[in-house]
């Protein structure tokens, strides 16, 4: 009895195959007729499902072979039906009416934008992260000690004139650079260290096309046992090429900052005139973009690092300056007044 069931089912499979072949011959070139064929064979209550239900009654020894045959039939039918569906004539299907006017606009979708300062900070972070720099942040309001004294900028030193400062109280200031955070981190952590500090800084300067009372800075610090000026050059040249492109050159020239010794200023070849001399680079062919140098041993002494053992380099750059050069923005105030005609350009 059981044996006979398997034979019966095998015969049934052959029968159905033949039936399906004749059905496909007579089917018309329409979605509906193919779909009704699909329901007849593959539907939940269709022929194939019926055969699978019968398979449950077949003895376990034969079930696997018969099951395989049945699956094969199902695949054959599925293939044929899919091929019929994909070749069916497309005009037959009821389509929604679409206007032929290609100039009708699509639905309005609001598109937002990151601020160019943020875009620039993210870019700077990305580049320095790729060579092992962490990212840290610090307070905008700080004491004079962290903003000046610890950075080898004592009270009554002419170098303080380099940074006009806003005071909140007698010895609390709006930070003039994010270097205050270098001190905070070094006070809390032991070297080696390598990080950048993005953030907002303030200078007591009248607002104009070229200067604003606040701007954003990214400073970097690397402290280790052997650190050289040559490495500082290598790092910053890597940054410049990544940020401005391979065809931009960097030049380093000596400068003075109380917190670095030796100190340098880095210029890039003018991206406007390609070094030929224009009004932006004041005919010099170079644009000043950042200050840097080897950490002055006096700074290490302030934070309790042994300046004989530890060396380091530091650098600082203005984000607005970078963004103005990169996006060719000619008025720094545009960053801060929130004109959406400006912001929309950075979507």
């Amino acid at each position, binding site marked *: 009895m059981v044996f006979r069931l398997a034979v019966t089912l095998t015969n049934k499979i052959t029968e159905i195959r033949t039936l399906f072949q004749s059905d496909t011959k007579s089917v018309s070139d329409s979605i509906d007729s193919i779909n009704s064929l699909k329901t007849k064979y593959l539907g939940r209550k269709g022929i194939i499902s019926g055969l699978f239900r019968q398979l449950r009654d077949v003895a376990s020894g034969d079930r696997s072979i018969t099951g395989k045959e049945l699956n094969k039939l199902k695949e054959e039918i599925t293939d044929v039906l899919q091929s019929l569906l994909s070749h069916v004539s497309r005009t037959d299907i009821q389509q929604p009416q679409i206007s032929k006017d290609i100039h009708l*606009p699509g*639905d*309005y*979708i*609001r598109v*937002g*934008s*990151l*601020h160019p300062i*943020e875009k620039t900070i993210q870019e700077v972070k990305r580049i320095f992260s790729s*060579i*092992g720099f*962490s*990212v*840290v*942040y610090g*307070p905008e*309001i700080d*004491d004079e000690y962290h903003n000046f004294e610890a950075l080898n900028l004592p009270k*009554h*030193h002419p170098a303080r*004139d380099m940074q006009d400062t806003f*005071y909140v109280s007698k010895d*609390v200031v*709006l930070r003039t650079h994010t270097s205050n955070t270098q001190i905070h*981190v070094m006070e809390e*952590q032991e070297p080696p260290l390598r990080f950048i500090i993005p953030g*907002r800084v*303030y200078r007591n*300067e009248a607002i104009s096309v070229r200067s604003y*009372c606040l701007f954003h800075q990214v400073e970097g610090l690397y402290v280790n046992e052997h650190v*050289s*000026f*040559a*490495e500082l*050059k*290598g*790092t910053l*040249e890597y940054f410049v090429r990544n940020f401005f492109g391979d065809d931009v050159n960097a030049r*380093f*020239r*000596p*400068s*003075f900052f109380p917190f670095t*010794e*030796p*100190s*340098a200023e880095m210029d890039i070849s003018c991206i406007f005139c390609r070094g030929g001399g224009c009004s932006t680079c*004041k005919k010099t062919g170079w644009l000043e973009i950042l200050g840097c140098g080897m950490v*002055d*041993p006096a700074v290490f002494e302030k934070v309790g690092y042994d300046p004989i053992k530890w*060396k380091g380099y530091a650098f600082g750059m203005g984000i607005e300056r970078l963004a103005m050069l990169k996006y060719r923005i000619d008025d720094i105030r545009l*960053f*801060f007044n*929130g*004109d*959406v*005609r400006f*912001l*929309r350009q950075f979507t």
Partner: protein
Amino acid sequence: MIVSIDWLKTFVDITVPPEELADILTNGGHETDVLSGRTTLDIELTPNRPDCTSHRGIAREIAVLTGGSLKPFSVDLQESSKELTSNFISIEIDAPRECPRYAARIVRNVNITSSPSWITKRLEACGLRSINNIVDISNYVLFELGHPLHTFDLSLIERNKIVVRTAEDRENFQTLDGEEHQLNSNHLLICDGIKPVALAGIMGGANTEVTIETTDVLIESAYFDPVTIRKGAKALNLSTEASKRFERGADYEGLITALDRCASLIAEFSGGEVLKGIVDVYPQKFPVNKVTLRKREAISIIGTDFSDSFIEKTLNGLDIKFSTVNGDYICTQPTFRPDLEREIDIIEELARIYGYGEIKPDVSYHGILGNNLEDEENPISQLKQFFVSQGFHEVVSNSLLNESEAKAFAIDDIVTLQNPLSQEMAVMRPSLFAGLMKTISYNLRRGERDLTIFEVGNTFSKSISSLTGTAEELELSGIICGNKSPKEWKGPVYEFDYFSMKGYMDALVLFLKAEGTQFRQIKDHQIFSSGQILLSNDGKVLAYFGVFFQSLLSIYDITTAIYGFTVNLPNVLYWLSKPLLFQHLSIYPGIARDLSFVIDDEISVGEVSKIVNKIGGQILKQLTLYDLYKGDQVEKGKKSVTFNLFFQDSKRTLTDEEIDVILETIISKTSKELNAKLR
């Protein structure tokens, strides 16, 4: 500082054109521009180089940077008078810390005339007006050698005496520009036997000025403490050629050369005779500073191989005397270079003269350091990206604002600046809404009415517990106003309203995956007339939003309704940094049902959905209110609410029968507790 190329040539051979000279100086650390006419240079000096405030100093730089040599300089002074200087003047220093050295010479029987034209021309090239031969010569020596000198009319110095003392508090003194100054104990005064005659290191007095009647001249050449001069000049808001040099550190040894040079030129061009000897009070000689320069250290820090011959040539070129001991250079700090105190300072000189451009970049980046610090703002970038993807523009606004404006957002604890740029920027922002509203107002005035903007930044308040007396909090706030979209051909325009704002907050909760977040009404808010607060499942504030008081908007001339929100970043960061775990998808089909109730108008939708959710339990995957109706079809004082319920189980197929049981329980419970009637 402006220098004359002609004048420089008296100290060093210059064969290159001015532009090239400017490049050489710029690459040597002195940013230089060629001025029109190409006979003068404008050099931006760094505050550490007082030696470069003179033609001789700049010439030394040019010589060492070009490998040339500085021409020798000496003063050939004829003390033609038989009289001794010390018979005519005595010097007493009462403030030796503030004035470590004071030297003077006297030139008698001078003729006050105009200066020879080569002197006036050189001074004019440097931007100085010619006055008379005596004043011009002291200025000439200042620009030549960099040491400030002062000349007095000797006949007006009473009792033949110079006394250097600190000023009394509120002591008055009139400088030679006619200005009356009130002094304090930070100021140093040069006095004669009776009265003050000069504000030391800053400006001379009107009472002893050299005039057309002067016949005998007293020349002062002194060294004043830099901090004293700096404080004094700052207190009077006065910066002079003299004070600039003294506050950077003058040359306490070189001052004698300057004095002799000045006396010699005065004698030569005024017909006067120089008295014998210098009265020089220098009670405590400055010690000689020896600095050991290790070649290996220099090579290690700069990362380039300096040769011995380069080092020696550079030290010589900079007038640094040295001897070698075991391969180290024992250097004597030149008295005109206060910046060369330590080994690192001399290493900088080596690198500077070698040329930064010649140092080969090293790109060995040194791999991973042990303590990589996590970027705490990374999650904030994600949040910014979320708002950008919702169509918001990020803005960055001024964190300084008007005090009365700030008070609209925070009644007290506002952080005030002591020295603001203007009243418009006198305090630190207590809220980001001030800047955002300004932005809205700015754009409305320009016809931009449909706005969705946000800002991330610090807000500030006073705080007794912090060291600086202030606290900073990082916030994210935003505003929406106008229409969701401009007029479209397809259909009506929808205005942003309160529920648009809430929709963004719902989306924020989804983005944060902050399950169990609840909305509560805000009561008595300072800036929102009506609003809601989002509480996380542990009761922390995630965000709040609302519609602003119209009175607040009128500060910014905004007449249209605008809606604002603030996200509490510290509390939201918890959800952003929570590890994301995948939830299995159910393979069993779900069942959807609708329920429509009529309830009293006072009963909130929340009360109904609370019961539905409770009874629905785990398998109620979604509950959506999709109709709210008040009007003719329902009784007065009632409303109809319609929900769609979607049930699904992750382990089995649900049956219609069991869902029916749940719905019946919901209906009877809402009827009993809320008097809700099935519609």
